[in-house]
């Protein structure tokens, strides 16, 4: 306990130090720290490690923001939280956001955390799926809701979807392990990781490598916020960028931090470390190396619009707004 006890002198010193820092940060002097929320798309895990780093290292508090990281869940709404203003920014995906926009939500995508869509077809090595053509004649376990995803993959790769037997399953690797299905539609970073930790090797075919271009883990904000709360948005995204750059430099540290910040999530370190490691190649690419984390171009947006059309979503490139990122990286 004595470890954390501050002497009066060091307390005063720390206080003065903070004040000194504040002098260089005009925003902090102008206003007290402002409460804003980031609505996550899932339960706490290293999936959002960059945000945890930004919070714990004070990248947001330096800019005068007190950011709450609101957890998601299997039945948690992200888009309404942003529409109603409960959260300034939400973590969504290009397909979800475009559906919301069709329903009248005034959204823009202001950054893209997952450059490559994390959807994979996972199978076991003795019966592997390496290319979309391998799917024909196989049983795939997936949520029926994801049928358009499979349909899009098939269309892009000229595979007849009627040749694939879809078995509706819950989102869990057990049906594959129990040989009820030949493969699963899941994320690169969850079920295959769970299987690996249980000692079951799996083969994954990343759909993004076969033409399925849908930005995932995208940052969404309302048009109203883009017009009236630009400074907050820039500060939020600047913190995210710094946090995720740190994440890339040391994914293991991010995993450890996740466990430290959220001890009641039932997370274990090896799983989180493996997940963090597998997440990095999806989030960073030549594009982000050249332009910075979260970046997107007219070209990647055009690819997205094309894939989204296959998913039955009619969107225009207007859905994406790079102005915040340009200020952050500029």
């Amino acid at each position, binding site marked *: 306990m004595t470890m954390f006890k501050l002497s009066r002198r060091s307390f005063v010193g720390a206080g003065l130090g903070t004040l000194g820092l504040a002098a260089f940060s005009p925003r902090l002097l102008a206003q007290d720290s402002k409460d804003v*929320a980031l609505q996550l798309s899932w*339960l*706490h895990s290293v999936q959002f490690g960059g945000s945890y780093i930004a919070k714990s290292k004070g990248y947001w508090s330096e800019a005068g923001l007190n950011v*709450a990281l*609101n*957890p*998601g*869940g*299997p*039945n*948690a*709404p*992200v*888009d*309404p*939280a942003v*529409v*109603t203003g*409960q959260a300034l920014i939400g973590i969504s995906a290009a*397909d*979800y956001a475009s*559906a*919301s926009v*069709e*329903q*009248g*939500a005034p959204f823009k995508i202001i950054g893209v955390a997952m450059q490559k869509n994390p959807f994979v077809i996972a199978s076991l090595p003795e019966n592997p799926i390496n290319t979309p053509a391998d799917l024909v004649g196989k049983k795939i376990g*997936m*949520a*029926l*809701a994801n049928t358009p995803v499979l349909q899009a993959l098939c269309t892009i790769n000229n595979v007849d979807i009627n040749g694939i037997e879809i*078995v*509706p*399953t*819950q*989102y*869990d*690797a*057990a*049906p594959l*392990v*129990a040989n*009820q299905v030949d493969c699963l539609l899941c994320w690169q970073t*969850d*079920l295959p990781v*769970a*299987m690996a*930790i*249980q000692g079951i090797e799996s083969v994954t075919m990343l759909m993004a490598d076969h033409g399925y271009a849908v930005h995932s883990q995208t940052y969404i904000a309302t048009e109203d916020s883009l017009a009236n709360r630009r400074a907050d948005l820039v500060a939020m995204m600047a913190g995210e960028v710094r946090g995720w750059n740190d994440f890339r430099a040391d994914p293991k540290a991010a995993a450890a931090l996740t466990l430290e910040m*959220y*001890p*009641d*999530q*039932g*997370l274990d370190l090896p*799983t989180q470390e493996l997940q963090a490691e597998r997440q990095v190649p999806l989030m960073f690419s030549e594009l982000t190396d050249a332009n910075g984390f979260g970046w997107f171009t007219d070209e990647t947006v055009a690819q997205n619009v094309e894939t989204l059309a296959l998913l039955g979503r009619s969107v225009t490139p207007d859905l994406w707004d790079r102005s915040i990122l340009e200020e952050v990286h500029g």
Partner: protein
Amino acid sequence: MTTRTAPFSPNALPTLFAACVLIALWQALASATADMFVFAGPLAVLGAIAEEGSLLLRSSGITLQSAAIGFFIGNVAAILLAGIALALPRLEQLVSGLALVFFCLPFVATGPILRVIFGVGDGPQITLAALATYYTTYLCLLVGLRATPGSWLDLVRSYGRGRLSELIHVRAMASLPYFIAGLQIGAPAAFLGAMVGEFTGAERGLGVLSIRAMRGLDVEMTWAIATTAAALSAAAFWLFGWLGRCLGAGPPPLLLASRQDGPSVGMTARTGSGLIYLILLILAVLGVWIGLIKGLNLSPFFAKGPQDVWAFLVSDPAAATNRAALFTAFWQTLSLTIPGYLVGLALGAGLAVLLVTQPRLASATLPIAIALRSIPIVTTAPLFVLALGRGAVGTITIVAVMIFFPTLAACLEGMRRTPRPVLDLFSTYAASPWQRLAHAQLPAMAPAFFASARMAVPSALLAATTAEWLATGTGMGSLMALTASTSNYNLLWSAIVVLAVTASLIYALVHILEQRVLHTFASEQLVQ
């Protein structure tokens, strides 16, 4: 026969034996399916509990707290509603109708809406726990408040006392055992409500842990969570039972109510008043619906009013397509719910009869039944489906398991209420157990059976949609969960309306059947 054998009497030996058999079966099942990642045996579960003890303890505490607050609020609401219904008999139908409609709202759909309304915190968990509890208690109370001998009421009146004394001295006392039964049924439901609430985005709790464990292929942890939740629910069940025994439910009085043949009301007049009531109820529901949206100033992006649902289902150009999508899923759900519902009711009532005729079996089997029921459906649904297959059997089983236990508990309680003088009379004439059953105990059970058959309607739909949402990915459950990705809130609200209306209709159907039967067997329960 001087002592009545109560099925709940503590009789350690058979219970212990049953527990041993159960655990042995469990272990055998786990060993046989070790490579399926479905079952974890008791040893593995004990290991997981020992290893993650403090985490489980903290998470249980969080969930238990939300469940307890919701349980309390729900029961207070139930008592208030029952009070209103009793004090203002004219309003009773309307109060019951409104209470029913809100109880029929599907969790899968209300969860995310509550989350948006409450924001971060435990608001949705508490609300869902309260919603899961209030109606069962309300119904039990209504049955209990009427289970009073007319002579006692006459006594109160002959002392010149009013309805209030009648309520406090007679009806409240008479309703106590039924109230306790309501609490017992409500406890696991509240826990389930709190866990489903956590699925809408919570920092911690058993629900959060269970999602993590299921996705992480951590079978030991999944079963450790299910075991912990079951133990907590079962403990609550025993606690309330014990409380009931402490408060001393004496031997039940002999109820001799005259058959209310009375001046028979014309069929047309009855249909007429029924129609007026229906219109009033619809108006009340619409009023509350619009009032909530306007009063809470909810965003039109996700809060849809009656006019939006009407447009979506009827007046919109795409209405036909919308209806087709909705009703395909609806029939899918209904075709699994109804068989599960009937099986569950038959099992519950059948087992109750068996237990009453074979009291020794009762003390052995009841703990198993309680344990089975107390395992929260959100953790068992995927496991059941994995074990029984994705076909109809899995979902039907889940529905049946969900409702068989409340039915069993209610029927047992009902049969225990068989008046002693009646049983003594049967003994005097050396009637066979079957005669006693058919002519005394079954009629005594009828009100409780029908009450639980009515309560089971929404529970059955809840179980079916939960299984579809978490496990099979078909039907209404999956359609409603889809909203998270499509933001099609018109569809979500329409689904809520269709499910609530269906539940209410089936409920009314059971109620009509009930009136016919009770007319003969327990006419004190009928108030016209």
